[in-house]
């Protein structure tokens, strides 16, 4: 019974086209329900899209209406012409890519170090990292800012990037995951004369690809969407990231709703595209890291 089901799942994955199950009454009800809930969920986004295709005067017309009477891409071209939006987009990209790369490297190493090696003071340090789970720019923003200020990193890329690069949560997730890898795999390699580093790079890392993907994607999302820290650390519109630029600069001109909605959609679009392509890896990645089954 279960093997038959497994085989069916496998063929579906490999061929791409499933031998479709017939519609049952409960499936029809569930699908309709899913469609209705999705419609509610997407309605705000749809409204943002329609607003962005209205003229500024039509956007604030009372009573309001869903579809533009005159479809215009005026707001979209305006954000490219007048705003710094391409600048912010590049800044967001630089910051998020750097943060993700650094976080992935240091937290994979640290997670493995804590899970599988012995050194003096390990447990104390692990306890310290647990403390870090409770500290964020939201909790200790002001002292963190003065620290970064002391280092002379206010209004620099470094100041935006580095403080986001020590997420205890990611170390903890990977630590939990590495603990679950069977020791036998490593021991066989040790007997063959491989050192710690070799084992880490040739055995452990390839095994952890799904977990690393999940950690990487969530780090990227968090960093791309991070508002609070860049808001504190930079006032320079040339250095702002998308969420900041949109929230602070676009609002400060007096809100132009059609432009604001166009800019917002621009900020969200890259991640939505990433998610469309990686959503299966993300879900299996969560299952793999043991986050879900903890």
């Amino acid at each position, binding site marked *: 019974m279960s093997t038959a089901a497994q085989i069916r799942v496998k063929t579906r994955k490999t061929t791409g086209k499933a031998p479709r199950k017939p519609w049952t009454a409960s499936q029809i009800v569930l699908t309709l329900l899913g469609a209705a809930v999705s419609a509610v969920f997407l309605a705000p986004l749809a*409204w943002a899209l329609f607003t962005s295709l209205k003229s500024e005067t039509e956007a604030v017309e009372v009573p309001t209406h869903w579809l533009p009477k005159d479809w215009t891409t005026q707001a979209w071209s305006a954000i490219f012409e007048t705003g710094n939006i391409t600048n912010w987009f590049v800044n967001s990209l630089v910051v998020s890519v750097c943060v993700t790369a650094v976080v992935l490297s240091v937290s994979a190493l640290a997670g493995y170090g804590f899970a599988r090696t012995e050194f003096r003071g390990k447990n104390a340090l692990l306890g310290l990292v647990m403390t870090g789970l409770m*500290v964020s720019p939201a909790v200790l923003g002001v002292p963190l800012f003065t620290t970064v200020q002391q280092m002379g990193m206010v209004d620099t890329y470094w100041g935006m990037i580095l403080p986001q690069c*020590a997420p205890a949560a990611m170390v903890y997730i990977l630590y939990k995951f590495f603990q679950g890898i069977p020791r036998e795999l490593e021991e066989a390699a040790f007997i063959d004369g491989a050192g710690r580093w070799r084992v880490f790079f040739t055995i452990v890392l390839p095994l952890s690809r799904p977990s690393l993907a999940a950690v990487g994607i969530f780090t990227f999302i968090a960093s791309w969407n991070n508002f609070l820290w860049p808001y504190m650390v930079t006032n320079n519109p040339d250095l702002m990231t998308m969420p900041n630029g949109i929230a602070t600069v676009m609002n400060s001109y007096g809100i132009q709703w059609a432009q604001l909605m166009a800019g917002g959609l621009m900020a969200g679009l890259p991640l939505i595209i990433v998610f469309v392509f990686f959503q299966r890896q993300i879900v299996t990645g969560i299952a793999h890291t043991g986050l879900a089954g903890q």
Partner: protein
Amino acid sequence: MTATSAQTVIAPTRARTAAAGATVRRRQGFQHGAWFVAPFLVLFALFVIWPLLRGLYLSFTDANISGDATSFIGLDNYREALDDPLVWESLGHSAYFTLLVVPCITVLAFLLAMLAHHIERVTWLWRLCFFAPFLLPSTVAANLWQWLFNPGTGMINHVFGIETAWLTDKSYAMLAVVVCTLWWTVGFSFLLYLAALQGIPAHLYEAAKLDGANAWHRMVHITLPMLRNITGLVVALQILASLQVFDQAVVMMDFLPGPEGSTRTFVQYTLEEGFTSYRVGYASAISIIFFVIIAAVALARMWLLRNREEGGR
């Protein structure tokens, strides 16, 4: 070193050599292990531990934003904070927000995950729909809902045929922030639930079906118990995130504390004191108070979890 070799010379028993071997291995481990964690620890020390210690130090001073001309004033900041009505008020707003958001998100995420898990067609589409809001920056979500809640030109009042002044009436302002947050963040917990649902072994359901359990029984006796851990995680993550709410509230209220200060959250108050009033020492003191509260919540959770695990065994 000398002691060990002397002992080994005097009594070279097998046990002692084994012990010496273990020491050597541990020493090697020390080097390697330390190198693995070192890069993270450097960043962690600079941007987490040092600010924490620095904040603790500053909280006993009257530091301003540039950090100069400070003098040590002992516990004065803390004394002032305990008497400051805005500390309690903003803490209350964060707590109120948390109390509203956490149960709603947990239930909503669970229901959405059940729905997405059980629909067999176009699975990617449901995932995308429910997760998509989370992919927007918080500021964009906040602007969008600010626009939706706008009394005259917004869609909410239009669709429901009401005339509520969502963003300017102090009894509705925080509710508006809550609604925005639910829509924006439920996707994350939804994905955690979805992954957990997929991790429940199918044979449990098959066995239950053979025993004649109906859908309700399977839900109560298999699904819910198997999801207990993930529910604990979702609740804990949501409590910690909700207590730290900032982005949505400030952006929806145009960077002001909302009608009669009704959406001023604790983080917002800290930043106001630090960056608007330039009272870094005082802001550090209330940050430390906030850190202690967060730590207490996290420790309480760990303690509850441990007790339950022991009880379970």
